[in-house]
Protein backbone atom coordinates (compact mmCIF):
# COMPACT_ATOMS: atom_id res chain seq x y z
CA UNK A 1 0.00 0.00 0.00
CA UNK A 2 2.99 2.31 0.57
CA UNK A 3 3.71 2.22 -3.17
CA UNK A 4 0.09 2.94 -4.00
CA UNK A 5 0.10 5.95 -1.64
CA UNK A 6 3.22 7.25 -3.41
CA UNK A 7 1.48 6.85 -6.77
CA UNK A 8 -1.66 8.61 -5.54
CA UNK A 9 0.33 11.56 -4.23
CA UNK A 10 2.29 11.72 -7.49
CA UNK A 11 -1.01 12.04 -9.33
CA UNK A 12 -2.37 14.60 -6.86
CA UNK A 13 0.56 16.94 -7.40
CA UNK A 14 0.85 16.39 -11.16
CA UNK A 15 -2.81 16.78 -12.05
CA UNK A 16 -3.83 20.28 -13.07
CA UNK A 17 -7.17 19.79 -11.27
CA UNK A 18 -5.42 20.13 -7.89
CA UNK A 19 -3.87 23.48 -8.72
CA UNK A 20 -6.99 24.76 -10.47
CA UNK A 21 -9.10 23.97 -7.40
CA UNK A 22 -6.57 25.73 -5.14
CA UNK A 23 -6.64 28.73 -7.47
CA UNK A 24 -10.45 28.53 -7.43
CA UNK A 25 -10.48 28.66 -3.63
CA UNK A 26 -8.09 31.62 -3.68
CA UNK A 27 -10.22 33.53 -6.21
CA UNK A 28 -13.41 32.73 -4.31
CA UNK A 29 -11.90 33.82 -0.98
CA UNK A 30 -10.61 37.01 -2.59
CA UNK A 31 -14.07 37.71 -3.98
CA UNK A 32 -15.66 37.19 -0.55
CA UNK A 33 -13.05 39.50 1.04
CA UNK A 34 -13.83 42.19 -1.54
CA UNK A 35 -17.56 41.83 -0.84
CA UNK A 36 -16.98 42.07 2.92
CA UNK A 37 -14.79 45.17 2.42
CA UNK A 38 -17.47 46.83 0.31
CA UNK A 39 -20.11 46.06 2.97
CA UNK A 40 -17.86 47.47 5.70
CA UNK A 41 -17.06 50.58 3.66
CA UNK A 42 -20.72 51.10 2.75
CA UNK A 43 -19.98 50.71 -0.97
CA UNK A 44 -22.49 47.90 -1.26
CA UNK A 45 -26.05 48.99 -0.70
CA UNK A 46 -27.48 46.39 1.71
CA UNK A 47 -30.38 46.93 4.10
CA UNK A 48 -28.98 44.53 6.76
CA UNK A 49 -25.20 45.01 6.84
CA UNK A 50 -24.66 42.61 9.76
CA UNK A 51 -26.74 39.88 8.11
CA UNK A 52 -24.99 40.36 4.78
CA UNK A 53 -21.60 40.13 6.48
CA UNK A 54 -22.59 36.89 8.19
CA UNK A 55 -23.87 35.53 4.87
CA UNK A 56 -20.55 36.20 3.13
CA UNK A 57 -18.54 34.86 6.08
CA UNK A 58 -20.53 31.61 5.86
CA UNK A 59 -19.81 31.53 2.18
CA UNK A 60 -16.11 31.88 2.89
CA UNK A 61 -16.09 29.05 5.41
CA UNK A 62 -18.41 26.67 3.63
CA UNK A 63 -18.45 27.09 -0.15
CA UNK A 64 -14.88 28.36 -0.43
CA UNK A 65 -13.58 24.94 0.55
CA UNK A 66 -16.52 22.62 0.00
CA UNK A 67 -17.25 23.46 -3.64
CA UNK A 68 -13.62 23.24 -4.89
CA UNK A 69 -13.18 20.08 -2.78
CA UNK A 70 -16.20 18.50 -4.42
CA UNK A 71 -15.20 19.53 -7.94
CA UNK A 72 -11.55 18.52 -7.62
CA UNK A 73 -12.50 15.23 -5.93
CA UNK A 74 -14.83 14.43 -8.79
CA UNK A 75 -12.13 15.22 -11.34
CA UNK A 76 -9.31 13.51 -9.44
CA UNK A 77 -10.98 10.47 -7.95
CA UNK A 78 -13.67 9.43 -10.44
CA UNK A 79 -11.43 9.72 -13.53
CA UNK A 80 -9.73 6.41 -12.70
CA UNK A 81 -13.10 4.67 -12.79
CA UNK A 82 -14.15 6.46 -15.98
CA UNK A 83 -10.81 5.78 -17.72
CA UNK A 84 -10.81 2.28 -16.18
CA UNK A 85 -7.17 2.85 -15.25
CA UNK A 86 -7.85 1.58 -11.72
CA UNK A 87 -8.10 -1.97 -13.05
CA UNK A 88 -4.36 -1.86 -13.84
CA UNK A 89 -3.67 -1.56 -10.12
CA UNK A 90 -5.94 -4.51 -9.31
CA UNK A 91 -4.37 -6.59 -12.10
CA UNK A 92 -0.96 -6.07 -10.46
CA UNK A 93 -2.17 -7.54 -7.19
CA UNK A 94 -3.08 -4.31 -5.37
CA UNK A 95 -6.20 -5.03 -3.31
CA UNK A 96 -9.29 -2.90 -3.75
CA UNK A 97 -9.25 -1.88 -0.11
CA UNK A 98 -5.56 -0.98 -0.52
CA UNK A 99 -6.56 1.21 -3.46
CA UNK A 100 -9.27 2.97 -1.40
CA UNK A 101 -7.09 3.52 1.67
CA UNK A 102 -4.27 4.89 -0.48
CA UNK A 103 -6.60 7.59 -1.81
CA UNK A 104 -7.70 8.68 1.69
CA UNK A 105 -4.46 10.50 2.65
CA UNK A 106 -4.61 12.22 -0.74
CA UNK A 107 -8.12 13.59 -0.39
CA UNK A 108 -7.35 14.65 3.21
CA UNK A 109 -4.20 16.45 2.03
CA UNK A 110 -6.27 18.22 -0.60
CA UNK A 111 -8.72 19.26 2.13
CA UNK A 112 -5.86 20.65 4.25
CA UNK A 113 -4.52 22.64 1.29
CA UNK A 114 -7.92 24.08 0.38
CA UNK A 115 -8.75 24.99 3.99
CA UNK A 116 -5.34 26.63 4.36
CA UNK A 117 -5.85 28.82 1.31
CA UNK A 118 -9.37 29.87 2.37
CA UNK A 119 -8.34 30.65 5.95
CA UNK A 120 -5.16 32.45 4.90
CA UNK A 121 -7.28 34.87 2.87
CA UNK A 122 -9.73 35.25 5.78
CA UNK A 123 -6.88 36.00 8.18
CA UNK A 124 -5.29 38.48 5.80
CA UNK A 125 -8.63 40.24 5.44
CA UNK A 126 -9.10 40.30 9.22
CA UNK A 127 -5.73 41.91 9.79
CA UNK A 128 -5.82 44.31 6.86
CA UNK A 129 -9.42 45.47 6.93
CA UNK A 130 -10.92 44.67 10.31
CA UNK A 131 -7.90 45.83 12.26
CA UNK A 132 -7.35 42.54 14.06
CA UNK A 133 -4.10 42.38 15.99
CA UNK A 134 -1.76 39.71 14.69
CA UNK A 135 -0.73 38.57 18.17
CA UNK A 136 -0.39 35.19 19.88
CA UNK A 137 -4.09 34.88 20.73
CA UNK A 138 -5.06 35.65 17.14
CA UNK A 139 -2.63 33.01 15.80
CA UNK A 140 -3.87 30.38 18.28
CA UNK A 141 -7.49 31.10 17.36
CA UNK A 142 -6.60 30.97 13.69
CA UNK A 143 -4.83 27.62 14.01
CA UNK A 144 -7.72 26.23 16.01
CA UNK A 145 -10.22 27.43 13.43
CA UNK A 146 -8.06 25.99 10.64
CA UNK A 147 -7.86 22.59 12.34
CA UNK A 148 -11.60 22.55 13.06
CA UNK A 149 -12.41 23.46 9.48
CA UNK A 150 -10.00 20.84 8.14
CA UNK A 151 -11.38 18.03 10.30
CA UNK A 152 -14.96 19.03 9.43
CA UNK A 153 -14.24 19.17 5.72
CA UNK A 154 -12.12 16.02 6.03
CA UNK A 155 -15.23 14.20 7.22
CA UNK A 156 -17.02 15.29 4.08
CA UNK A 157 -13.97 14.26 2.02
CA UNK A 158 -14.03 10.73 3.49
CA UNK A 159 -17.72 10.48 2.64
CA UNK A 160 -17.17 11.77 -0.92
CA UNK A 161 -14.35 9.31 -1.61
CA UNK A 162 -16.35 6.40 -0.20
CA UNK A 163 -19.36 7.22 -2.37
CA UNK A 164 -17.16 7.43 -5.48
CA UNK A 165 -15.40 4.17 -4.63
CA UNK A 166 -18.53 2.20 -3.84
CA UNK A 167 -20.57 3.38 -6.81
CA UNK A 168 -17.63 3.72 -9.24
CA UNK A 169 -19.45 6.16 -11.42
CA UNK A 170 -18.35 8.65 -14.03
CA UNK A 171 -17.74 12.37 -13.63
CA UNK A 172 -21.21 13.57 -14.61
CA UNK A 173 -23.18 11.21 -12.38
CA UNK A 174 -20.72 11.83 -9.55
CA UNK A 175 -21.22 15.57 -9.88
CA UNK A 176 -25.00 15.22 -9.89
CA UNK A 177 -24.96 12.90 -6.86
CA UNK A 178 -22.54 15.09 -4.92
CA UNK A 179 -24.44 18.29 -5.63
CA UNK A 180 -27.73 16.60 -4.72
CA UNK A 181 -26.16 15.39 -1.48
CA UNK A 182 -24.80 18.84 -0.66
CA UNK A 183 -27.97 20.76 -1.43
CA UNK A 184 -30.11 18.03 0.10
CA UNK A 185 -28.26 18.47 3.40
CA UNK A 186 -28.56 22.23 3.16
CA UNK A 187 -32.30 21.90 2.56
CA UNK A 188 -32.59 19.58 5.55
CA UNK A 189 -30.74 22.12 7.64
CA UNK A 190 -33.23 24.82 6.62
CA UNK A 191 -36.16 22.52 7.51
CA UNK A 192 -34.58 21.90 10.93
CA UNK A 193 -34.38 25.63 11.53
CA UNK A 194 -37.94 26.21 10.35
CA UNK A 195 -39.27 23.44 12.60
CA UNK A 196 -37.02 24.45 15.53
CA UNK A 197 -35.43 21.01 15.59
CA UNK A 198 -31.90 22.22 16.20
CA UNK A 199 -29.64 19.85 14.28
CA UNK A 200 -31.67 16.71 14.91
CA UNK A 201 -31.73 15.82 11.19
CA UNK A 202 -28.36 16.96 9.95
CA UNK A 203 -26.37 16.59 13.16
CA UNK A 204 -24.66 13.51 11.83
CA UNK A 205 -24.12 14.84 8.34
CA UNK A 206 -20.57 15.88 7.67
CA UNK A 207 -21.69 18.32 5.01
CA UNK A 208 -23.55 20.32 7.64
CA UNK A 209 -20.62 20.49 10.02
CA UNK A 210 -18.60 23.33 8.50
CA UNK A 211 -21.58 25.64 8.99
CA UNK A 212 -21.51 24.92 12.70
CA UNK A 213 -17.84 25.54 13.33
CA UNK A 214 -17.22 28.48 15.60
CA UNK A 215 -14.54 29.84 17.91
CA UNK A 216 -16.44 28.60 20.96
CA UNK A 217 -15.15 26.16 23.54
CA UNK A 218 -13.74 22.65 23.50
CA UNK A 219 -17.13 20.97 23.09
CA UNK A 220 -16.97 21.90 19.39
CA UNK A 221 -13.72 19.98 19.07
CA UNK A 222 -15.11 16.86 20.68
CA UNK A 223 -18.19 16.92 18.50
CA UNK A 224 -16.32 17.39 15.23
CA UNK A 225 -13.72 14.75 16.09
CA UNK A 226 -16.43 12.26 17.05
CA UNK A 227 -18.23 12.87 13.76
CA UNK A 228 -14.93 12.47 11.82
CA UNK A 229 -14.02 9.21 13.55
CA UNK A 230 -17.57 7.88 13.21
CA UNK A 231 -17.60 8.64 9.50
CA UNK A 232 -14.14 7.17 9.02
CA UNK A 233 -15.08 3.93 10.76
CA UNK A 234 -18.47 3.66 9.00
CA UNK A 235 -16.97 4.36 5.56
CA UNK A 236 -14.10 1.91 6.12
CA UNK A 237 -16.55 -0.79 7.16
CA UNK A 238 -18.72 -0.08 4.11
CA UNK A 239 -15.66 -0.40 1.85
CA UNK A 240 -14.48 -3.59 3.56
CA UNK A 241 -17.94 -5.17 3.34
CA UNK A 242 -19.17 -3.90 -0.03
CA UNK A 243 -16.16 -2.57 -1.92
CA UNK A 244 -14.40 -5.87 -2.48
CA UNK A 245 -17.27 -7.63 -4.23
CA UNK A 246 -18.00 -8.06 -7.91
CA UNK A 247 -15.84 -7.96 -11.00
CA UNK A 248 -13.73 -5.01 -12.05
CA UNK A 249 -15.33 -3.55 -15.16
Amino acid sequence: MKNMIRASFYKLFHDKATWISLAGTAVWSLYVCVMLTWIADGKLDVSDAAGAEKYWRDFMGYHGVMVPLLISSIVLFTAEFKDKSWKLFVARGISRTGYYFSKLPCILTLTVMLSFVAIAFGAAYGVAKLGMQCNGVFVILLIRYFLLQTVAHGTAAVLILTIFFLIKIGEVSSSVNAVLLMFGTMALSKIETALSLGDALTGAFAFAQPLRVSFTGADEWIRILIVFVAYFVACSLAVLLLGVRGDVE
Partner: protein
Amino acid sequence: MSNIVKTKALTKKYHGFAAVDGVNMSIEKGDIYALIGENGAGKSTLMKMLSGLAAPTSGEVVLFENKHPEVARFRMGCLIDSPALDSRLTVRDNLEMFSRAFGCHKEGEVNRILKLVGMDGNANKVIKKTSLGMKQRLAIGIALLGSPDFLILDEPMNGLDPMGIQEIRQLLKKLNAENQTTILISSHLLDEVSKVATRYGFMKAGHLISELSNEELEEKSKTCLRLKVSDTAKAAMVCEKDLGTNNYEVMDAEHVRLFDYVDESAKVVTAMVRGGVEVGEMVRMGESLEEFFNNLMTAREEQ
Protein backbone atom coordinates in the same frame (compact mmCIF):
# COMPACT_ATOMS: atom_id res chain seq x y z
CA MET B 1 9.67 -26.61 -17.33
CA SER B 2 7.61 -24.77 -14.69
CA ASN B 3 3.99 -23.84 -15.10
CA ILE B 4 3.25 -20.14 -15.23
CA VAL B 5 -0.51 -20.62 -15.52
CA LYS B 6 -2.60 -23.65 -14.73
CA THR B 7 -6.36 -23.57 -14.65
CA LYS B 8 -8.62 -26.34 -13.48
CA ALA B 9 -12.21 -26.42 -14.78
CA LEU B 10 -12.26 -22.64 -14.79
CA THR B 11 -15.80 -21.35 -15.27
CA LYS B 12 -17.33 -17.91 -15.34
CA LYS B 13 -21.09 -17.47 -15.54
CA TYR B 14 -23.02 -14.24 -16.04
CA HIS B 15 -26.69 -14.65 -15.07
CA GLY B 16 -26.54 -18.37 -15.83
CA PHE B 17 -24.72 -17.90 -19.16
CA ALA B 18 -21.29 -19.53 -19.19
CA ALA B 19 -18.84 -17.09 -20.80
CA VAL B 20 -16.00 -19.47 -19.92
CA ASP B 21 -16.90 -23.09 -19.34
CA GLY B 22 -14.61 -25.60 -17.63
CA VAL B 23 -11.35 -24.45 -19.17
CA ASN B 24 -8.26 -26.50 -18.32
CA MET B 25 -5.18 -24.83 -19.70
CA SER B 26 -1.54 -24.63 -18.85
CA ILE B 27 1.08 -22.17 -20.00
CA GLU B 28 4.70 -23.01 -19.42
CA LYS B 29 7.64 -20.71 -18.82
CA GLY B 30 8.87 -19.19 -22.07
CA ASP B 31 5.67 -19.85 -24.03
CA ILE B 32 4.08 -17.26 -26.26
CA TYR B 33 0.57 -18.59 -26.01
CA ALA B 34 -1.93 -17.25 -28.53
CA LEU B 35 -5.57 -17.39 -27.54
CA ILE B 36 -7.70 -17.48 -30.66
CA GLY B 37 -11.45 -17.34 -30.99
CA GLU B 38 -14.36 -15.43 -32.42
CA ASN B 39 -15.91 -12.41 -30.69
CA GLY B 40 -17.65 -13.59 -27.52
CA ALA B 41 -15.69 -16.84 -27.39
CA GLY B 42 -14.57 -16.01 -23.83
CA LYS B 43 -10.96 -14.95 -24.45
CA SER B 44 -11.16 -11.63 -22.60
CA THR B 45 -13.16 -13.18 -19.74
CA LEU B 46 -10.51 -15.87 -19.35
CA MET B 47 -7.78 -13.23 -19.34
CA LYS B 48 -9.73 -11.16 -16.79
CA MET B 49 -9.93 -14.16 -14.48
CA LEU B 50 -6.20 -14.76 -14.79
CA SER B 51 -5.49 -11.11 -13.99
CA GLY B 52 -7.89 -10.96 -11.04
CA LEU B 53 -10.37 -8.57 -12.64
CA ALA B 54 -13.13 -11.18 -12.65
CA ALA B 55 -13.78 -13.78 -10.00
CA PRO B 56 -14.32 -17.34 -11.29
CA THR B 57 -17.75 -18.83 -10.64
CA SER B 58 -15.99 -22.16 -10.13
CA GLY B 59 -12.64 -23.75 -10.85
CA GLU B 60 -9.15 -22.75 -9.91
CA VAL B 61 -6.34 -20.54 -11.17
CA VAL B 62 -2.76 -21.31 -10.17
CA LEU B 63 -0.16 -18.71 -11.15
CA PHE B 64 3.58 -19.37 -10.88
CA GLU B 65 2.70 -22.60 -9.07
CA ASN B 66 1.44 -20.44 -6.22
CA LYS B 67 -2.04 -21.18 -4.88
CA HIS B 68 -2.47 -17.53 -3.89
CA PRO B 69 -2.78 -15.77 -7.27
CA GLU B 70 -3.07 -12.31 -5.66
CA VAL B 71 0.53 -12.66 -4.46
CA ALA B 72 1.77 -13.89 -7.84
CA ARG B 73 0.12 -11.02 -9.72
CA PHE B 74 2.96 -8.69 -8.72
CA ARG B 75 4.98 -10.60 -11.36
CA MET B 76 2.44 -10.00 -14.13
CA GLY B 77 1.83 -7.19 -16.60
CA CYS B 78 -1.57 -6.78 -18.22
CA LEU B 79 -3.27 -5.06 -21.10
CA ILE B 80 -6.93 -6.05 -21.08
CA ASP B 81 -9.61 -4.55 -23.34
CA SER B 82 -8.92 -0.97 -24.39
CA PRO B 83 -5.86 0.94 -23.10
CA ALA B 84 -6.73 2.15 -19.57
CA LEU B 85 -4.78 5.34 -18.98
CA ASP B 86 -5.19 8.51 -16.96
CA SER B 87 -6.36 10.81 -19.73
CA ARG B 88 -5.39 14.11 -18.07
CA LEU B 89 -1.80 13.17 -17.31
CA THR B 90 1.05 13.11 -19.81
CA VAL B 91 2.58 9.95 -21.22
CA ARG B 92 5.56 10.29 -18.85
CA ASP B 93 3.37 11.08 -15.81
CA ASN B 94 1.29 7.97 -16.47
CA LEU B 95 4.43 5.83 -16.47
CA GLU B 96 5.79 7.63 -13.39
CA MET B 97 2.56 7.07 -11.50
CA PHE B 98 2.14 3.41 -12.43
CA SER B 99 5.82 2.65 -11.78
CA ARG B 100 5.41 4.00 -8.24
CA ALA B 101 2.22 2.00 -7.71
CA PHE B 102 3.84 -1.21 -8.98
CA GLY B 103 6.87 -0.65 -6.73
CA CYS B 104 9.33 -0.56 -9.61
CA HIS B 105 10.16 3.14 -9.67
CA LYS B 106 13.87 3.63 -10.15
CA GLU B 107 16.21 5.89 -12.07
CA GLY B 108 15.87 5.37 -15.81
CA GLU B 109 12.96 2.89 -15.70
CA VAL B 110 10.47 5.28 -17.30
CA ASN B 111 12.94 6.31 -20.03
CA ARG B 112 13.71 2.64 -20.72
CA ILE B 113 10.02 1.88 -21.24
CA LEU B 114 9.48 5.01 -23.35
CA LYS B 115 12.29 3.92 -25.63
CA LEU B 116 11.15 0.31 -25.69
CA VAL B 117 7.66 1.17 -26.97
CA GLY B 118 8.85 3.99 -29.23
CA MET B 119 7.21 6.79 -27.27
CA ASP B 120 10.32 8.76 -26.26
CA GLY B 121 9.44 11.50 -28.73
CA ASN B 122 5.93 11.92 -27.29
CA ALA B 123 6.68 11.68 -23.56
CA ASN B 124 5.22 15.08 -22.72
CA LYS B 125 2.00 14.74 -24.67
CA VAL B 126 -1.22 14.68 -22.66
CA ILE B 127 -3.03 11.36 -23.18
CA LYS B 128 -6.19 13.14 -24.36
CA LYS B 129 -4.23 14.44 -27.35
CA THR B 130 -2.63 11.18 -28.41
CA SER B 131 -3.82 8.75 -31.08
CA LEU B 132 -5.20 5.27 -30.37
CA GLY B 133 -1.94 3.75 -31.59
CA MET B 134 0.07 5.85 -29.10
CA LYS B 135 -2.30 4.90 -26.30
CA GLN B 136 -1.88 1.26 -27.23
CA ARG B 137 1.91 1.58 -27.18
CA LEU B 138 1.79 3.27 -23.78
CA ALA B 139 -0.57 0.62 -22.41
CA ILE B 140 1.91 -2.03 -23.53
CA GLY B 141 4.65 0.05 -21.88
CA ILE B 142 2.74 0.11 -18.59
CA ALA B 143 2.34 -3.67 -18.79
CA LEU B 144 6.12 -3.93 -19.23
CA LEU B 145 6.96 -1.78 -16.17
CA GLY B 146 9.17 -3.67 -13.76
CA SER B 147 10.00 -6.35 -16.37
CA PRO B 148 7.22 -8.80 -15.40
CA ASP B 149 7.73 -12.54 -15.85
CA PHE B 150 4.32 -13.01 -17.40
CA LEU B 151 2.48 -10.69 -19.81
CA ILE B 152 -1.24 -10.84 -20.61
CA LEU B 153 -1.98 -8.87 -23.77
CA ASP B 154 -5.53 -8.71 -25.05
CA GLU B 155 -5.53 -7.52 -28.67
CA PRO B 156 -2.25 -5.59 -28.33
CA MET B 157 -2.07 -4.83 -32.07
CA ASN B 158 -5.39 -2.88 -32.03
CA GLY B 159 -5.05 0.59 -33.49
CA LEU B 160 -1.41 0.14 -34.48
CA ASP B 161 -0.16 0.97 -37.96
CA PRO B 162 1.74 -1.75 -39.91
CA MET B 163 5.08 -0.37 -38.71
CA GLY B 164 3.79 -0.35 -35.12
CA ILE B 165 2.56 -3.93 -35.42
CA GLN B 166 5.97 -5.00 -36.67
CA GLU B 167 7.75 -3.15 -33.84
CA ILE B 168 5.53 -4.67 -31.15
CA ARG B 169 5.97 -8.12 -32.68
CA GLN B 170 9.76 -7.69 -32.59
CA LEU B 171 9.55 -6.40 -29.02
CA LEU B 172 7.54 -9.41 -27.84
CA LYS B 173 9.95 -11.79 -29.54
CA LYS B 174 12.92 -9.99 -27.97
CA LEU B 175 11.39 -10.06 -24.47
CA ASN B 176 10.63 -13.74 -24.87
CA ALA B 177 14.08 -14.60 -26.17
CA GLU B 178 16.18 -12.43 -23.84
CA ASN B 179 14.20 -12.46 -20.59
CA GLN B 180 12.25 -15.71 -21.00
CA THR B 181 9.09 -13.61 -20.55
CA THR B 182 6.00 -15.76 -20.88
CA ILE B 183 3.28 -14.11 -22.94
CA LEU B 184 -0.43 -14.79 -23.30
CA ILE B 185 -1.74 -12.92 -26.31
CA SER B 186 -5.08 -12.71 -28.06
CA SER B 187 -5.63 -11.14 -31.44
CA HIS B 188 -7.94 -11.20 -34.42
CA LEU B 189 -4.93 -10.73 -36.70
CA LEU B 190 -4.20 -14.44 -37.07
CA ASP B 191 -1.28 -14.00 -39.44
CA GLU B 192 0.36 -11.58 -36.99
CA VAL B 193 -0.17 -13.95 -34.07
CA SER B 194 1.26 -16.85 -36.03
CA LYS B 195 4.50 -14.87 -36.45
CA VAL B 196 5.14 -14.75 -32.70
CA ALA B 197 3.23 -17.58 -31.03
CA THR B 198 4.80 -20.81 -29.90
CA ARG B 199 1.52 -22.35 -28.69
CA TYR B 200 -2.10 -21.87 -29.65
CA GLY B 201 -5.36 -22.28 -27.76
CA PHE B 202 -8.59 -22.16 -29.76
CA MET B 203 -11.76 -21.06 -27.97
CA LYS B 204 -15.38 -21.29 -28.96
CA ALA B 205 -18.47 -20.53 -26.87
CA GLY B 206 -16.47 -20.51 -23.65
CA HIS B 207 -14.71 -23.83 -24.30
CA LEU B 208 -11.05 -24.38 -25.05
CA ILE B 209 -11.59 -26.70 -28.01
CA SER B 210 -8.03 -27.31 -29.11
CA GLU B 211 -4.45 -26.65 -28.03
CA LEU B 212 -1.53 -26.95 -30.43
CA SER B 213 2.15 -26.24 -30.37
CA ASN B 214 3.71 -24.26 -33.17
CA GLU B 215 5.28 -27.45 -34.54
CA GLU B 216 1.92 -29.23 -34.57
CA LEU B 217 0.30 -26.33 -36.34
CA GLU B 218 3.12 -26.12 -38.87
CA GLU B 219 2.69 -29.80 -39.48
CA LYS B 220 -1.00 -29.30 -40.11
CA SER B 221 -0.36 -26.25 -42.21
CA LYS B 222 2.23 -27.92 -44.45
CA THR B 223 0.74 -28.39 -47.92
CA CYS B 224 1.14 -31.90 -49.26
CA LEU B 225 -0.48 -34.62 -51.28
CA ARG B 226 -1.78 -37.50 -49.19
CA LEU B 227 -1.89 -40.68 -51.24
CA LYS B 228 -3.64 -43.92 -50.38
CA VAL B 229 -1.52 -46.53 -52.15
CA SER B 230 -1.44 -50.28 -52.59
CA ASP B 231 2.26 -50.57 -51.60
CA THR B 232 4.03 -47.87 -49.62
CA ALA B 233 7.51 -49.34 -50.26
CA LYS B 234 7.00 -49.17 -54.01
CA ALA B 235 5.48 -45.70 -53.68
CA ALA B 236 8.59 -44.56 -51.81
CA MET B 237 10.81 -45.91 -54.59
CA VAL B 238 8.73 -44.08 -57.21
CA CYS B 239 9.13 -40.86 -55.24
CA GLU B 240 12.90 -41.23 -55.05
CA LYS B 241 13.68 -42.70 -58.50
CA ASP B 242 10.97 -41.41 -60.83
CA LEU B 243 10.03 -38.14 -59.15
CA GLY B 244 13.51 -37.47 -57.78
CA THR B 245 12.46 -36.30 -54.30
CA ASN B 246 13.12 -37.36 -50.74
CA ASN B 247 10.54 -34.95 -49.44
CA TYR B 248 7.91 -37.54 -48.57
CA GLU B 249 6.71 -39.39 -45.49
CA VAL B 250 5.31 -42.89 -45.13
CA MET B 251 2.50 -42.46 -42.61
CA ASP B 252 1.23 -46.03 -42.26
CA ALA B 253 0.83 -49.20 -44.35
CA GLU B 254 -1.47 -47.42 -46.81
CA HIS B 255 -0.67 -43.72 -46.73
CA VAL B 256 2.18 -41.61 -48.02
CA ARG B 257 2.51 -37.84 -47.80
CA LEU B 258 4.36 -36.09 -50.60
CA PHE B 259 5.47 -32.54 -49.95
CA ASP B 260 6.71 -31.79 -53.49
CA TYR B 261 4.66 -31.82 -56.72
CA VAL B 262 1.68 -30.48 -54.72
CA ASP B 263 0.33 -28.66 -57.78
CA GLU B 264 1.28 -31.45 -60.21
CA SER B 265 -1.00 -34.25 -59.08
CA ALA B 266 -1.38 -35.71 -62.60
CA LYS B 267 2.39 -36.16 -62.86
CA VAL B 268 2.44 -37.96 -59.49
CA VAL B 269 -0.41 -40.34 -60.42
CA THR B 270 1.22 -41.15 -63.78
CA ALA B 271 4.55 -41.91 -62.09
CA MET B 272 2.89 -44.12 -59.48
CA VAL B 273 0.92 -46.10 -62.09
CA ARG B 274 4.08 -46.57 -64.22
CA GLY B 275 5.87 -47.84 -61.13
CA GLY B 276 3.12 -50.41 -60.52
CA VAL B 277 1.52 -48.62 -57.56
CA GLU B 278 -2.26 -48.36 -57.41
CA VAL B 279 -3.46 -44.99 -56.15
CA GLY B 280 -6.77 -45.40 -54.33
CA GLU B 281 -7.12 -41.80 -53.20
CA MET B 282 -5.22 -38.53 -53.46
CA VAL B 283 -6.00 -35.49 -51.30
CA ARG B 284 -4.33 -32.10 -51.31
CA MET B 285 -3.78 -31.19 -47.66
CA GLY B 286 -2.52 -28.29 -45.60
CA GLU B 287 -4.11 -25.05 -44.36
CA SER B 288 -3.07 -21.68 -43.19
CA LEU B 289 -3.78 -20.71 -39.57
CA GLU B 290 -6.82 -18.85 -40.81
CA GLU B 291 -8.09 -21.88 -42.75
CA PHE B 292 -7.32 -24.16 -39.82
CA PHE B 293 -9.22 -21.82 -37.48
CA ASN B 294 -12.21 -21.59 -39.84
CA ASN B 295 -12.33 -25.36 -40.32
CA LEU B 296 -12.06 -25.92 -36.58
CA MET B 297 -14.93 -23.51 -35.88
CA THR B 298 -17.09 -25.08 -38.59
CA ALA B 299 -16.37 -28.60 -37.35
CA ARG B 300 -17.34 -27.54 -33.82
CA GLU B 301 -20.60 -26.03 -35.06
CA GLU B 302 -21.44 -29.26 -36.90
CA GLN B 303 -20.91 -31.34 -33.73
